[in-house]
């Protein structure tokens, strides 16, 4: 038999055959390790748990298009590549258009989206009924549903009227051959002057109608009726200058100026695409407590079917990451992806970081206190053990045990206790963390494989530290004295 085997035989015998006393030490280490392992599990899991909690409050990052045309699916996918898949909780694309319900003469905002993603990015959305699953199924906001008395299962006919011309940008874009433009400008005493102009094949003015509105009939009002004034515009190109290209109506300079300005700013008011009407089935009524209640939601495919375009305006991202990580991802997206930029929803990310920080320092504090308490408890027990075994220690010394042997034996016993307590603690701690997690966060946690060795190491370390003082006392025992004790 080797010395090591005898050593192990002695310390295991000490623990197994002297159960009652060592049980107390084992219990204190075990309980300490349990709380520690539990807290550490929660500590490790808290960001994930809390992250998930926060993620239920909505998206924390937006990906937007740089241009006005919205972004394509490819652009969005490219942007999402910057975020590790395991951190991306969801990415819901949105496209907003205006639709009419012709039968009711009502007009709503329709949002095209991906319902599977919505359940991830906006878990707080509450649907009475179900989310659309098939094409031609829609979700209706509660406000709309109440206004028009629509229920789950109802049919709904929606019309998309392509935007009447453009209202933004350079009017010169609209001066295409054959286009019909209309415009208005402020004339005499604040009254508006309206013009409608049709362009010929070479984008010159083919015909012109002027509505002088409230201009003084005998003065500015003549702009509407004076053929000589009107005729001079025919065949001319836009834009034009009063006094050069055309002459002012006599005595009505203000009105004439307004006519030219209205012409120069006239836009195409005619639809370039035909209005489209589709029938949908309402599968659910959406309650969110926000403006989404006044929207109609449909799948992106349905929206593309209605508008002929699959571009999206914005993507709402829910990312489970720290504030720093989020910022890095946002920057990366803006840098890497073409034509899109990412923006953080600061309100969400900031509060998340602050709460997590506080929780973690709380766990850290409790952990430290538990560690100290465990050490005191184990140390006290070991002190009692040494005092109870002083005769045995004296005997061992009398038999020739060096101080080193005595130290090794007690440290060995302590660390063996730490080992048992650590294993016990890791298992019970996981159960403890699981119970806490289920009750507090409402979700189960995954067992951290590193927990077992970590708990064992910490327990052994704590046990070893706790044994230092008792060992000092053990080493100081004088065999001559204790062996004479009656």
């Amino acid at each position, binding site marked *: *038999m*080797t*010395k090591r*085997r*005898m*050593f192990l*035989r*002695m310390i295991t*015998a*000490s623990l197994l*055959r*002297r159960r009652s006393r060592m049980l107390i030490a084992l219990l204190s280490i075990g309980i300490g390790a349990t709380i520690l392992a539990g807290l550490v599990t929660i500590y490790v899991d808290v960001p994930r748990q809390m992250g998930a909690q926060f993620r239920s409050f909505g998206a924390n990052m937006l990906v937007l298009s740089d241009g006005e045309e919205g972004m394509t699916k490819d652009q969005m996918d490219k942007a999402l590549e910057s975020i590790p898949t395991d951190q991306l909780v969801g990415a819901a694309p949105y496209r907003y258009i205006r639709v009419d319900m012709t039968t009711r003469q009502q007009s709503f905002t329709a949002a095209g989206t991906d319902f599977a993603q919505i359940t991830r990015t906006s878990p707080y959305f509450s649907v009475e009924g179900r989310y659309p699953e098939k094409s031609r199924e829609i979700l209706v906001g509660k406000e709309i549903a109440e206004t028009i008395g629509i229920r789950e299962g109802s049919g709904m006919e929606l019309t998309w009227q392509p935007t009447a011309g453009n209202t933004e940008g350079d009017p010169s874009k609209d001066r295409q051959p054959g286009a019909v433009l209309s415009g208005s400008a402020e004339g005499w005493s604040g009254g508006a002057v309206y013009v409608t102009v049709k362009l010929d094949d070479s984008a010159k003015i083919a015909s012109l109608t002027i509505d002088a509105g409230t201009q003084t009939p005998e003065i500015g009002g003549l702009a509407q009726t004076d053929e000589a004034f009107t005729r001079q515009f025919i065949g001319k190109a836009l834009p034009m200058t009063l006094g050069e290209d055309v002459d002012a109506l006599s005595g009505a300079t203000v009105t004439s100026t307004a006519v030219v300005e209205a012409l120069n700013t006239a836009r195409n008011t005619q639809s370039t695409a035909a209005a489209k009407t589709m029938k949908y089935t309402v599968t659910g009524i959406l309650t969110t407590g926000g403006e989404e209640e006044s929207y109609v939601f449909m799948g992106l495919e349905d929206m593309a079917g209605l508008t002929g375009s699959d571009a999206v305006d914005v993507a709402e991202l829910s990312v489970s990451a720290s504030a720093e990580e989020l910022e890095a991802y946002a920057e990366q997206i803006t840098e890497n992806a073409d034509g899109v930029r990412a923006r953080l929803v600061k309100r969400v990310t900031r509060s998340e970081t602050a709460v997590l920080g506080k929780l973690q320092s709380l766990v850290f504090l409790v952990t430290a206190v538990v560690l100290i308490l465990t050490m005191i408890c184990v140390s006290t027990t070991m002190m009692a053990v040494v005092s109870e075994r002083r*005769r*045995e220690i*004296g*005997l*061992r*010394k*009398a*038999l*020739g*045990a*060096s*101080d080193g*042997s005595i130290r090794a034996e007690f440290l060995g016993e302590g660390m063996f206790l730490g080992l048992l307590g650590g294993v016990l603690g890791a298992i019970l701690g996981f159960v403890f963390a699981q119970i806490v997690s289920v009750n507090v966060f409402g979700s189960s946690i995954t067992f951290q494989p590193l927990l077992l060795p970590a708990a064992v190491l910490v327990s052994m370390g704590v046990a070893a530290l706790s044994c230092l003082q008792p060992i000092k006392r053990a080493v100081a025992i*004088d*065999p*001559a004295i204790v*062996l*004479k004790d*009656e």
Partner: protein
Amino acid sequence: MSLLELKNVSKIYGDLKALDNVNVHVDKGEWVAIMGPSGSGKSTMMNIIGCMDKPTLGEVLLDGVDIAKESSKKLTDIRRDKIGLIFQQFHMVNYLTAVENVMVSQYYHSMPDEQEALEALGRVGLRERAHHLPSQLSGGEQQRVCVARALINHPELILADEPTGNLDEANENIVLDLFAQLHAEGTTLIVVTHDPEVAEAAQRTIVLEHGKVAREVINENFEEQQKKWLARLIPGSKR
């Protein structure tokens, strides 16, 4: 040839002279009893010889080494290598079995060897009780385990402090049988006792009184007595 020599040894606690200028000489292979009433300095002397205490004054030569001058660490080494101790209260590790208790002594000395430990227990007639815990052994059996433990490392000197103090007569005889056998094998024995019967078993008795050697008594009948002991022992050793 001398194994142990105390030269002018005194142990002084404040005003109390536990040992007062004691001179003792023990030859290799000798069986010596140290007798005296309580407070005569027996225990102090036993502690000094057992390397568990140091004298205030004087020299203690054990196998030629003055243990009065050694460090306590060195004393531990000497005690481990040269001395086998037997106590009145037996002193066993209560959570280890008989054989494990013997092996503890081997463990600190050199290498634990269960076979050898079992043989030693066989020698004291406890082969069958080897795997019993101390609580399952009688006092006599416990003391025999302690004898086995003391002799397991083949020490130069076996130092027994009231080895029969807690034993009945039958067990006292068994232990004295074992001592006789050890003596016959050439082991040096020093037995501290206040029991005249135990002292009479020895070759020579040193009587202490008030920390001084009061007298030495040579056992004239030792040879004869030893023959008798050994004769009794032969059937016993085969137990």
